[in-house]
């Protein structure tokens, strides 16, 4: 049994145990810690495990169906491992910070989302990749609808919107995947195995125009899941409404599935598809929509949860920019950015959730001067906020820098193509994100304390997971090579010749 299977199964079993009556908090935190330890072990042993070997490490496969060939296969390359680490970290923080007054379903849902995300990241079979993601979506919908913030009417509406939106996105995605598999099977045996599909793609690549078409369908499908403009309008209300652990896990981890899918499935199998002019231009248009439109939208928000939710949509634009650039540096940057964004937004949502609990509101006009009595809280928030505006030394910067640099690797050229223009426009987005984050920081923590509002620092044990996230931001921000070295040649195959 591969350790990866344990990593996937453990949260599922823990969720089952809690459902059967095991103590919720102890079980879920225990499972999260064990998972984190195993994941760290995997990260450290990855180099040895993957040495001298193409493809995935820690592989195992169980055949489910012969024809079409569906196997429950798991395996990790550097990209998957980085996202697994992200999941383990965020899951740990998310389940840890669930209050004792919350019902056990909070833990169950968090663990299910985590298990789904882990399964999706570690599956080497397109079928399970898709299925695990759907598994993780279900508790998300339920938790938004049942335990979301705000009026019952509102949260129900949001839950439905999210459900329908993501359902539609998943359907488009499914259509694209089926199309892809059918095209590659060529009338022979249908296979969903990624390795087999990659071999097939290397052997007989599809005609370029067909690649472009399939890529575009996949882009729409995955893009909906990642809230690619203009398919994003589910995301902001969903995150603003979702209970804290769900918001952390979905925006921090699960959302990365769409990007991961593009990186894992679309780019390697359709290497030229993304570079076809019309696809490229459409993608750039959409991601600039993410950055510019959502940047301005975020500036206009008046509540912290809305700012965070919209900023999370905005930042997806940079990751898409990395995918659009398609150079090795940019792709690695995109992976790093996925990790960094996941950690930073999870940290921010956790803090916002705590603020909401203590203060009862997140409206800027009603808050101020919190820095005076809650210094540790303020510092943690600063880590998240400055990370998300791309301050050097925190993880997001390295990713953004690599994305930008990777887009400017057409050496010796003296004219800007659409990609370079897009980078320049997205650089302005960095300024905009500083505007809204600093405004939020200013109105929450600076200034004199509002009367009647008092916030204490959380106790050390409550702070622990948040400190962990902040430390990860700092460590990865100072030494991005720690993570980047994990990605050896996984992306080399992706880069278009």
């Amino acid at each position, binding site marked *: 049994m591969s350790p990866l299977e344990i990593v996937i199964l453990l949260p599922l079993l823990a969720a089952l145990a809690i459902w059967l009556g095991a103590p919720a908090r102890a079980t879920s935190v225990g499972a999260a810690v064990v998972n984190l330890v195993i994941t760290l072990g995997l990260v450290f042993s990855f180099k040895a495990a993957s040495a001298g070997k193409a493809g995935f490490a820690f592989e195992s496969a169980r055949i489910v169906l012969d024809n079409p060939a569906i196997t429950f296969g798991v395996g990790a390359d550097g990209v998957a491992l980085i996202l697994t680490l992200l999941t383990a970290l965020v899951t740990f923080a998310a389940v840890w910070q669930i209050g004792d007054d919350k019902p056990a379903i909070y833990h169950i849902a968090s663990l299910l989302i985590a298990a789904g995300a882990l399964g999706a990241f570690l599956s080497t079979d397109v079928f399970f990749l898709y299925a695990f993601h759907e598994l993780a979506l279900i508790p998300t919908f339920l938790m938004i609808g049942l335990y979301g913030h705000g009026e019952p009417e509102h949260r129900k509406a949001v839950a439905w919107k999210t459900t329908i939106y993501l359902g539609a996105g998943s359907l488009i995605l499914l259509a694209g995947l089926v199309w892809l598999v059918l095209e590659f099977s060529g009338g022979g045996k249908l296979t969903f195995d990624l390795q087999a599909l990659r071999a097939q793609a290397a052997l007989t690549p599809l005609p370029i125009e067909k690649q472009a078409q399939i890529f575009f369908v996949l882009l729409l499908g995955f893009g909906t899941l990642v809230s690619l403009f203009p398919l994003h309008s589910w995301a902001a209300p969903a995150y603003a409404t979702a209970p804290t652990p769900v918001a952390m896990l979905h925006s921090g981890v699960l959302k990365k599935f769409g990007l991961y899918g593009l990186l894992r499935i679309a780019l390697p199998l359709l290497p030229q598809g993304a570079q076809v002019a019309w696809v490229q231009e459409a993608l750039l248009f959409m991601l600039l929509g993410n950055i510019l439109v959502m940047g301005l939208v975020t*500036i206009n928000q008046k509540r912290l949860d809305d700012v965070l939710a919209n900023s999370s949509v905005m930042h997806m634009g940079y990751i898409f920019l990395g995918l659009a650039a398609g150079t090795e540096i940019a792709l690695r940057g995109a992976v790093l950015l996925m990790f960094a964004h996941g950690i930073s937004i999870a940290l921010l949502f956790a803090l916002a959730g705590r603020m909401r609990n203590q203060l009862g509101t997140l409206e800027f006009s009603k808050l101020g001067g919190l820095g005076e009595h809650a210094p540790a809280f303020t510092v943690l928030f600063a880590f998240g906020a*400055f990370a998300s505006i791309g301050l*050097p030394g925190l993880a997001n910067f390295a990713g953004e820098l690599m994305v930008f*640099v990777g887009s400017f690797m057409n050496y010796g*050229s003296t004219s800007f193509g659409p990609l370079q223009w897009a980078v320049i426009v997205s650089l302005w987005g960095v300024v905009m994100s500083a505007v809204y984050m600093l405004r939020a920081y*200013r109105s929450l923590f600076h200034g004199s304390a509002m009367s009647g509002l008092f916030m204490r620092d959380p106790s050390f044990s409550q702070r622990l997971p948040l400190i962990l996230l902040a430390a990860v931001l700092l460590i990865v921000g100072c030494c*991005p*090579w720690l993570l980047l*070295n994990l990605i050896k040649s996984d992306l080399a195959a992706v880069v278009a010749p």
Partner: protein
Amino acid sequence: MTPPAQDTTASLPTLLLMLPFLTALSILLGHKLLKGASVVLSIASAAICFVISLMLLDARDSAPMLLPFIEIGKFRIGLDAMIDQQSRGMMFIVTSIGLLVHLFSLGYMKEDEGKVRFFGSLSLFMFSMTGIVLAGNLFMMFIFWELVGLSSYLLIGHWFEKPSAAEACKKAFLTNRIGDFGFMIGILMLFMANHGDVSFSGLKGGFAEGPLHEMTQTHTLFMTLAALGIFMGAVGKSAQFPLHVWLPDAMEGPTPVSALIHAATMVAAGVFMLVRCSFVIEASPDAATIIAWIGGLTALMAALMATQQNDIKRVLAYSTLSQLGYMVMAVGLLAIQVSVNHHEAGPGHPAMFHLYTHAFFKAMLFLGSGAIIYACHHEQDIWKMGGLMKHMPVTFVTFAIGTASLMGVPFITSGFWSKESILGVGFEACRPLFWIGVATAMLTAFYMTRMFVITFLGKPRTESAHHAIEAPIIMVLPLVVLAALTVLSTFESFNRLLAAMIPNHAEDHPTVMIASIAALIIGSSVGFLLYRGKNSDPLNIKLFANKFYFDEIYAVIVKVLQDQLAWIVNGLERMFVDGIVARLPAFIAMRIGSAARILTGGHLQAYTFLLGAGVLMVIYLVVFVLPQLGH
């Protein structure tokens, strides 16, 4: 997982860079354990840094790789130092003033609750500033560029309970971000043009005989834009027009911070960086002209604004702006001279020379103003001071030395020589800018005399000024040391240590010297006559007092271009994007649903009708369609 092997000669610079960082980190993590010890820790690290920078002064030129950052195959973005004359000299300035400011703060911030936080932020600043000075490539410079922005943000917002401080730090960070926007574009353009090498040595080689050499002739627009992009970074950091608005507001921070960051070091980083990249600017005469003019404009404008300020720190802040404009102008002028007149650039640079002299006397002036403010119980309005000469003799003497240097009293002050070298270049490169420089010098003499007269001469105007006593020794000591450095820097023998700073001084045209001395005399005598014995300002020029209404204009621009645009875009996004992508399909589905609802509303007849229609459809398909398909 192992970091790449390190250069063995890199240990000293690495220590120099990492020590303040580790200090800041340990203060952040362990301030509860360390308590007061964290202040000592911070000062100790500043002292060690100073020693290291002294040790580096006679080190060989080298380019050690300090720490890895991003390494992928052949691609590398690393923290690579570049140790040469310029960085050694700058390092000396940064660490010496840094150490003095640390000491001064010990007295100035004694009563402050956030003392530990303050010293932690100071260490963070020392780390970032060291990074800028050591930086061997543009990416590293950008990284620390942003980090000094952060530490400046933290220090300006030290008293964040005050709304004005909270706004000021936000404004400083955001304005710098706008500058960094251009900086990054410039870096990326050079990155692209120079085939991925943006180390200073690589770029220099590129301009000499590499890919960039040809492009300077064939793609002038591209090169001009790249140079302007780089310049934009300096515009933000060194507070040049039109991004100068943050610096006066930054005076909301504690005064030692103003001395260190917003007078001597960080704001000068823009000039430092421009001199580092001078070959980029020299490659494009257009960019050089623009830079020189923006510098000149800033110098003149800031000097005009300084004449009508009443806050002692703000006067100094505008004076800093003005002097920074001078330095930037010098960068542009020298580049014009090199590129148009094909002069060979000497080893030193007038801008660096002025930066170096200015750093000492301006830091001293700020610390002096800090001592005054401290003595007058945090009173900053010069019209509420007066007669401090008697109460604070040491401060008075040091302040006088600083003022004289800033005004450029001929021959005996360092400020005179450095200003002279700039005006000398200006005289040869661009005559109108030369006259702007002279006008600025005259204004400088005027407003400094004004401030000096109002503050120190005459009689005390308020109780607090009356009861002012000399600051404690821990605060006076740095003043004295800085005064000594200011005086020392007049002498060439001292300056030989910092050879790169000093341009080889060719004989100037006599007009230059005459003009600058005349400017000094006119400016200071007018100031002295106008303000001696006055209790309120005889001049009242609204335009200058209100800083040419830049803040108001920018407020409108921000309001319209950002807030209202954001509001409109938010509305449009809700209306159209959400509308077309989500709500329109939802609406259509709902209509179809309610249409279908009639058929499936539980009405038996409707069901039967559907059943019948279904039967017909099946019959149609089975009997009429399938045979066609060959089944």
